[in-house]
């Protein structure tokens, strides 16, 4: 009872202050802030049409490096939390029941298309909405689809580790090349090209592709870890 009271008390205090503070912030009005600078400068300096991409990958690229690391750490941490020694004679865990044929064929057709979509999204990240994170997540969805529909579909952890590491190293090395060629870490050292051109934006495109591969492999790894490490015990319970 006391706990309920406390919860309601906390909720009302937090709610009151949130409403009070945020409704003082005008909605839908133009404000004077750094965002204006980015909008004006990103098509001129970087030749990138998508201002959000310009911010995420270049102006605040360091955040993105950190963000990719967070995902990497989540994948690593998940592996460590769910770690189980393989017992002798233990078979590779599989889905309990095979999916219906419709789902199998459907996912067979969808799989390459989703991969293609994901690739398109992250390659065109600097031109249109989307980018490494979105594209990577879409690709991870594709492998998820295969995991669900095929018993025998197995994700090769070796490959995932390689893709993940190489993509991460490419991102960080581009930063170091910037440090050597330019003056600062992650500096855009390639020519910017033309606005709305696929090869515009200098290193932005390359970084987003690396991010795409990294995010895709990490998310796939996360799902695979959660899915695989639990099947045997789940079966035991039934």
């Amino acid at each position, binding site marked *: 009872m006391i706990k309920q009271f406390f919860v309601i008390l906390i909720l009302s205090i937090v709610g009151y202050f949130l409403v009070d503070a945020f409704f003082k912030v005008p909605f839908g009005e133009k404000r004077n802030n750094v965002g204006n600078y980015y909008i004006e400068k990103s098509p001129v300096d970087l030749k990138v049409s998508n201002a959000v991409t310009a911010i995420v990958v270049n*102006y*605040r690229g*360091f*955040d993105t490096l950190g963000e990719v690391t967070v995902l990497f750490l989540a994948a690593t941490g998940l592996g460590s939390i769910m770690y189980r020694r393989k017992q002798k004679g233990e078979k590779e865990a599989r889905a309990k029941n095979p999916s219906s044929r419709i789902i199998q064929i459907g996912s067979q057709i969808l799989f390459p298309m989703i991969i293609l979509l994901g690739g398109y999204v992250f390659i065109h990240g600097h031109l249109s909405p989307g980018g490494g994170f979105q594209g990577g997540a879409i690709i991870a969805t594709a492998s998820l689809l295969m995991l669900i529909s095929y018993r025998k579909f197995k994700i090769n952890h070796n490959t995932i*580790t390689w893709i*993940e*590491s190489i993509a991460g*190293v490419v991102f960080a090395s581009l*930063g170091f090349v910037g440090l050597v060629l330019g003056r600062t870490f992650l500096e855009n050292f390639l020519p910017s090209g033309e606005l709305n051109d696929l090869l515009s934006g200098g290193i932005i495109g390359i970084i987003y592709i690396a991010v795409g591969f990294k995010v895709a492999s990490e998310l796939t790894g996360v799902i695979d870890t959660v899915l695989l490490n639990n099947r045997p015990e789940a079966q035991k319970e039934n």
Partner: protein
Amino acid sequence: MVISPVHYIALPLMAAFLIPLFGKLNKDLARIIPGLVLLYLSYISVVLMNQIISSNTIIVEIIAGWRPPWGINLVFSPFTGFLASMFSMLGFVIWMYTYNFKPEVDNAQKQKFYVLFMMLITGATGIVLTGDIFNLFVFLEITAISAYSLTAFYRERDGAEAAFKYLLIGSFSSTLILLAILLLYTQVGTLNMAEIALKMPAVDPYMKGVILILFFVGFGIEAEMFPLNGWSPDVYTQAPGPIGAIFAGMVVKAGIYGLIRVVFTLFDVKEILPLLVIIGMITMAVAEVIALRQGKLKRMLAYSSIGQMGLVVVAFGIGTHESVFAAIFLMFNHAIIKGMLFLSGTYLVYNSTEKTLDDVDGIGKYLPFTSFLFALGSLAIVGMPPFAGFWSKLYLLMAAADVRLMAVIAIILVVSVIEIVYYFRVIHRIYFRERTSTIELKIPSFNAKSAMLILAIIIVAVGVYPDLISGLIERATTDLLDKQSYIQSVLSVGLK
């Protein structure tokens, strides 16, 4: 390649991405690489600290070629540089300690442990070095995610429970900080800390208050302030021993840094300082009294750690030059002393499952070296004269006496007596009781011994000759309190 502060972040990240690959080549490489990285970072700490101290400047490093406030920047000033150097060097010592710790852990797990271990240190370093408030949040999350995973590292303990508790409260903390960042952005339109500080006087006082409270609670959770510190004793107890040392030495310090940076640099609200003193005193008093009642070694150390953090916050809250000096000195001392206590205490209760104080009865005869260092650390942390802890407490008491805060002095003295009681109780058990438990003892490996010895030597050296470090701390204090020069040097960087 020129040595620059970005190495503190970028090199460990690169190494973390490479460890899974190198781990395939040779299983020992995964353990060696973090040590090499931390050794290199310790080296560049020396070089960079020398550079800024001798030339009397602040290094502001631009990232991605956009000068502040448009890009992210790293600030290596005497204060942040001092903390970053401390983290790297302490990190290297703890790495030495972990090298042969628990050899029975599987290789795949060891590899993950070292990735998370290195990123925990990098996250804490990033929090300290960054000059951008959202970037600080990202590093906070890097620290947090590694910390959650490391807390749950051992399957045989209740790590998952402690980690879940930590995660729950850590998410609240990051939500509050994110809300504060958002409100701040609507008010000042920038995320660069120097420009925020510059524009702060124009902000509506009500909004200022709301933002400050959000930051205060958010970072207060990370800094283990009362009453939001219920998670930390469990985390210290359940995490692997060396990780406890990292939590006490770095993660909490990074939380305190966030709190202090927000209060001292971002905001111009002096009214918050008495609140810091009050919260710090309550934290200290409550934690030390609870520590007195603990029957488990690591829990006792954890509560003692919370108490010491309260002391640090009190010292910052007094707000004079002398007290801030004492506060930074306390942070340094606490990092090395509590680090050593965790490292040696871990071996005292190595094979015990419950890790109660009964397990250390009479252990002085069997593990003479470790017990001696533990006793030395205990003496140092309660503030006995020939050790490092003495000076920081003395400076704090003198600073408090200067501003006539007699209540603060009284509470600090009472709390010190409590500390003496419970630490001496442990020493008494170690040396003057007969060993009753039958648990097999673990002799520390050579590198663990040398790691502890290094910290012990620093403790004694600083205790005998405090001028070793006080010059640096003096510069750090001046730097922290000089807000104008911080703003000036960050915002003028890159201008021709």
